[in-house]
């Protein structure tokens, strides 16, 4: 049949074009969907880094020139909060909180993580004066 719009040839070609364009758009969307994953990876990595540095170096008790990892010196808490406020300044889109349960040591930056939706948490067991407690580092976007 000639001169008709709804012939099978037109239908098949329209279908093929739709599939090609649709697949391309879907591929592009898949790429852009990676952005939130990267951001989540970044705050996860940052929370882990801070927790690791805190227990192994920044908060670690020093005795006779030796560093005791995981043994927290409460007097060094200010060093941790100072480091965190440098790494996550007021201009940063991230916020943070650091707490050690029962010991009363806590700090927040940029309003803390209370109202934020993307939160990464890293926990470590630490010793303060011989008692095991939990260091809780939160970084959020």
């Amino acid at each position, binding site marked *: 049949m000639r001169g008709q719009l709804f012939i099978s040839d037109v239908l098949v070609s329209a279908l093929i*074009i739709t599939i*090609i*364009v649709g697949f*391309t*758009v879907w*591929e*592009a969307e898949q*790429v*852009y969907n*990676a*952005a939130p994953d*990267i951001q989540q*990876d*970044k705050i996860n*990595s*940052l929370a*882990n*880094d*801070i927790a*690791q*540095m805190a227990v*192994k*170096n*920044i908060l*670690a008790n020093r005795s006779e020139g030796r*560093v005791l990892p995981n043994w927290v010196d409460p007097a060094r808490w200010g060093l941790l909060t100072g*480091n965190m406020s*440098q*790494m*996550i*300044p007021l201009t*940063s889109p991230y916020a943070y909180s650091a707490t050690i349960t029962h010991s009363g040591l806590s700090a927040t930056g940029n309003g803390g993580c209370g109202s934020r939706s993307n939160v990464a948490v890293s926990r470590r067991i630490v010793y303060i004066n011989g008692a095991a407690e939990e260091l809780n580092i939160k970084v959020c976007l």
Partner: protein
Amino acid sequence: MKKGINSLDAFLAIMIMLFIVFWMQNFFNLVYENAQDFGVQVTLSTEAMRVGSMMNSFYATNPSPTDYLQLNSSITVFGDKLDCRVTKPRGDANVTIVATYKGTKYNASYPVALQVNYDPLNQKVIA
């Protein structure tokens, strides 16, 4: 009315086909360029995360003044080798990676402990 290749119908059909082909070429090119731009940015962000996390882990080992961490900051993007420059000025709690890809400058950064020092000449992280 003429028929065949020199007819008005054939001319119109060729014009429509050309329009569709050029539109699709433009569309695919735009999608490709956007994806490439985004891909370079994502790759640099991941690289900044990797390098920054290595620096933080190095600092967590309580390095002595003679200890160092050797970095290699060349990464590959879409088959091309992308030479990037790692910077971490003293007093700055961020490592930044700057790279130029096909004439466009990209950069990404990641928070790093303030006490970490980086020697860009030798690509060494020192205590």
